[in-house]
């Protein structure tokens, strides 16, 4: 089953809405809390990343019996050094964003920690795509 949500850059008041919507869906599907908690945290971080850095974005969530696949695609400045961006504490967030309590440089690291696999690709000047997979049942390998 697929869901698509749009996010607009700069709209901090609404960051978290997609995570909330997905959380409700997972609750209805009776998906174990330990699983849904991780995906919801990862999604929230992803949403904040788009809001803080990009102009607009789309989140696609695809749920089947085995896994939850999430794809976050944004139109924005992109990431020139992905390895560096993955480091905990590294952030390019503006002082204004930091003042609002975001931009601690934990976003991508937290997303990785809270998903079973994470793929990230980016073209500087165009945008970034992050793909996450979370398995619903404990997954070998």
């Amino acid at each position: 089953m697929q869901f698509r949500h749009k996010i607009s850059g700069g709209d901090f008041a609404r960051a978290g809405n997609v995570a909330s919507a997905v959380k409700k869906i997972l609750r209805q599907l009776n998906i174990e809390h330990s699983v849904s908690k991780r995906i919801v945290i990862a999604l929230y971080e992803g949403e904040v990343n788009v809001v803080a850095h990009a102009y607009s974005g789309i989140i696609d969530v695809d749920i089947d019996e085995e896994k939850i696949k999430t794809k976050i695609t944004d139109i924005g400045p992109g990431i020139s050094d992905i390895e560096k961006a993955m480091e905990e504490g590294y952030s390019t967030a503006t002082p204004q964003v930091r003042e609002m309590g975001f931009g601690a440089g934990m976003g991508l690291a937290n997303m990785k920690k809270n998903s079973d696999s994470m793929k990230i690709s980016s073209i500087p000047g165009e945008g970034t795509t992050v793909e996450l997979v979370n398995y619903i049942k404990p997954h070998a390998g």
Partner: protein
Amino acid sequence: MQDKSLNRDFHHALTVHNDLCIGCTHCMTVCPTQAIRVRKGKATIIANRCVDCGECYKACPVSAIAVEQDDLEMIFKYPVRVILIPSVLIGQFPKKIMTSSIYNALKEIGFTHIYEVENTVDMVLEAYRQYMHEHTERPMISSYCPAIIRLIQVKYPSLVDNIMKVNPPIDMSAMYYREKLKAGGIPEEQIGLFYATPCAAKIAAVKSPVGETESAINGVININFLYNRILKFLQRKYTESEPPETDDLLSSRGILWSLTRGEVIHSNGRALAIDGIKNVNEFLENIENEKLDQIDFLELRACDESCAGGILISGNRFLTVERLKNRAEEYQAREDDKVRKLSDGFLDINEHGFLGDIGPRPMGTLDEDLATALKKMERQRRIMCFLPGFDCAGCGAPDCQTLSEDIVQGNAQISHCIFMQHQMIKQNVLSQGQAIRVTESIWGEGRLEKNCNKLGAEDENN
């Protein structure tokens, strides 16, 4: 009508008076857990969704929501009749009525011993301190308000481990006074312990306690009932008789406990107090995805102005708060108010201070089996394409989303939606007569007829 998946024993203090219910939508649309549907012209409460918050009671325009209570006569089965009164009982009376007069009235009504519920808050605080020290979950959520505990169980099951499993003052006091009276030589079976409750949730909690402990309370009397009896007594000329048995354990901390911020003022860390079930709902919705582990303690209360706004409190809640704050100030001026009143040996906090497990009771789960649940959800989303989406409640469910859920669960039909009825008539899959029968199955027979007795109509007072 019931969710088939979950139907465990869950006592409720709120029921619908079918003879009074006029089949409107007020209660249904304010319910924070979508626990009400209208069928055959009457509101029905779905037991495993209801959290006994009492929003329906407040919203009902014809007082058709009833709060159960025990018969006052039952107190006379016991030679020793103890009433535990919460401070808000005193707070709702005008200032000119002295506390001692209220105590006298309670004695006249039949109680032999009068203690205030919050007499044991220092013991509760000690248990809080221990619990916070021994448990790492943050934020810790107060176990004080039973409607909030139930809300978390059904709607935010992931947060059950954050509930601080400490007995609230009412249970602490019930156990304490039972032990104390027994120690004074009164046989256990002669002691009747009664609680004057400000709300429905507390009744439900006494009748089916969370944490699987047995309640030390024998019965519950609603405060609004006592309020009327006390006022009636005080209006008569009466001679002061011997004052009833009581003690001096009450402190300013106890007087303020049931008011908003009554708990957080004792927190050393970062703590928030939120009252009103709408506000609590909104906040809990947020803390599930954001990590708020920098907050140490949450005081969450279902009613606006906390227990002063309890549904069984007759007095104005803001004036009640004012009177209690004044009363607390009087206590604060006393020499011994600062001395903490810890257990004097009658109650062992380690043994009686804590609650057992509080498990999740999630509602709204589509199916235990994920494949089936996914199918149901796909169907639900397809149905939502057709429903109008303005939540008119004309189908007997509070909103379109809930109707779509009821449909996939087999508890409602698509033709329950009045918009869909038009669509189906247009497409010749539903006849005019069938549509009328559907409407009557929800709103009651004869509901489509003229009726001038309703509010605002020509004969509204008949």
